[in-house]
């Protein structure tokens, strides 16, 4: 998946771009809008102003982390489809411990994020256990854990985590001193995006340049060979799985810390699933996955503006990533068959 010739990469990119362009134009026409107007509104909403750019980067934070998390798992051969649930576990942990943490804001933030990452990693444990001991494919168990996590959020914001001072199904808000302030006035982007990008870089270095990363990749690429040369197959898979969950949990924690300030229901707009799409578009290479995540965040920010200005439904931002991934999968499979 990772070593493609330049010509092949070009062919795959061309297929993806033409599919995405066709989807954009087709959907705009369906909505009765000139595609040119729709694309202009989309671009302006994504990067046309300081506020627009800030919106894109604010949305990118969670997506970059889930995309990198998905890449780590996929490269080790773990099909973690449960990033959505791990994201929610992180958000729940952040909302639960956030209002309790005392001390300096910096220490409180660190505690909150550590709790979120830990919760995300713990949320993979049932799936990892069922896979290792009972042979349950992690694809299925992680999907089911997504449903359980969504149900838990729904119940918690009406129960244990509900703000005692309010009537709404939402948790207590984090103290203002703890919440991350916007980097620039009039924009929603915070330092969280820097944390996400730094972690994407860290994951890239770890996976591509360290002996440990080599072992993880070997386990994913050729499990039998990796086992034959004495690599601890099960342990490596679990580490990649847990790291992937920790990234998603951290994404949930940062969403609470930097964007929402509290937990409500339903909490996610598919950060886990879109993160998986970004990982697939980026060939499960953490850096390419992070770039794809920023692209999808721009699409999300732009499509909100597009819906407001031109009436083309903003759900376009969910369709286009799916179409892009389908095009990339089809193009890669076709090229692989030609080569064989």
């Amino acid at each position, binding site marked *: 998946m990772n070593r493609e010739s330049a010509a092949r990469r070009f062919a795959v990119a061309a297929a993806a771009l033409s599919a995405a362009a066709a989807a954009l134009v087709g*959907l705009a026409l*369906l*909505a009765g809008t000139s595609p040119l107007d729709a694309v202009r509104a989309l671009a302006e909403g994504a990067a046309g102003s300081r506020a627009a750019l800030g919106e894109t980067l604010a949305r990118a934070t969670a997506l970059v982390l889930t995309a990198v998390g998905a890449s780590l798992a996929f490269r080790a051969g773990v*099909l973690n*489809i449960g990033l959505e649930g791990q994201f929610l576990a992180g958000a729940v942990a952040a909302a639960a411990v956030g209002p309790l943490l005392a001390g300096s804001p910096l220490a409180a933030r660190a505690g909150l994020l550590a709790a979120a990452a830990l919760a995300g990693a713990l949320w993979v444990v*049932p799936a990892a256990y*069922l*896979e290792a001991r*009972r*042979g*349950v*494919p992690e*694809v*299925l*168990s992680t*999907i*089911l*854990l*997504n*449903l*359980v996590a*969504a*149900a*838990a959020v*729904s*119940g*918690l914001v*009406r*129960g244990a985590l509900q703000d005692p001072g309010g009537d709404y199904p939402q948790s207590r808000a984090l103290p203002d001193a703890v919440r991350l302030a916007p980097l620039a006035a009039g924009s929603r982007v915070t330092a969280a995006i820097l944390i996400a990008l730094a972690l994407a870089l860290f994951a890239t270095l770890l996976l591509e340049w360290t002996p440990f990363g080599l072992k993880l990749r070997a386990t994913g690429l050729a499990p039998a060979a990796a086992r034959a040369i004495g690599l601890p197959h099960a342990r490596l898979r679990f580490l990649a799985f847990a790291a992937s969950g920790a990234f998603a949990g951290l994404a949930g924690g940062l969403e609470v810390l930097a964007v929402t300030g509290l937990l409500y229901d339903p909490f996610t707009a*598919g950060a886990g*699933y*879109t993160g*998986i*799409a970004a990982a*697939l578009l980026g060939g499960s290479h953490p850096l390419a996955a992070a770039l794809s995540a920023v692209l999808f965040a721009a699409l999300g920010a732009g499509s909100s503006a597009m819906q407001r200005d031109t009436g083309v*439904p903003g*759900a*376009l*931002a*969910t*369709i*286009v*990533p*799916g*179409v892009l*991934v*389908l095009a990339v*999968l*089809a193009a*890669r*499979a*076709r090229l*692989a*068959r030609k080569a064989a």
Partner: protein
Amino acid sequence: MSGFLAITLLLAAPLLLAAAGELLLERAGSIQIGLEGTMLIGAFTAFAAARSGAGPHAALLAAAFAGLLAGAAFAAFAVAGRADPILVGTAWNLVAAGGTAFSYRLLAGATGSVLEVRTLPPLAFGLPAAALAAFFVPVAAEVFLARTRPGLALVAAGENPLALAATGGSVVAVRTAASVAAGALGALGGALLVLTVSPTFVEGVTAGRGFLALALVVFARWKPLRLVPGALLVAGATALQYRLQAGGSRIPYAVFLALPGLLALFALAAARGRGGAPKALGTPAP
């Protein structure tokens, strides 16, 4: 209590349809984890047809037709195209969730009002004919797989595709046919939700039922008749959730929301995972 039983049966019917279709596809050697998306497509198609004047039975047919097309499209990528079915299914869910939300907004406009459709008339036990028929689909699937020539070809495509190819059969054709059938059944399951349980369309109306149906197939160990107890169990948990929610129970609401998913997880653990899985499940056609 009879109300509880009727609701359990009503909720089990869409699960059974979707799971039976998925079971056929998996027995043929492919897998569609985007079943949730296919159910959404069926739910939306039925809603759109009913809103544009079709009767509930015609709406059901329209959904089945959309499901046939969806199954053919999935097969074009994951069967004939040989792309990894798990990854295609993940993207499939995005396209279906986004596509139905997009179309719903075009149809309903930006108004927040709930658009209702006519539901299927009840035939017996308060259930419409289509929901009752759903309980015969696993029986039909069992007979089809065990007793008919196309059924045997389907099983061969999932157990030993090379042997099927060697005897002149086409693995791609068999799996594509299974995918088309699975698409129709999944879409019918989604349509049944809109035409019985909740007579309107909202984004994500399927509420994870496609994912539960996927788990049911493993729980049933790929045997059609064993889908019935699993579906009744999961549907019963959902019915219990409705009942206790309305009754103001002291047991936390979240426990019942989470119950179907938790039950499916325990069921998977009890079924010991891959036992009984088709040998060529998820592998590309030769």
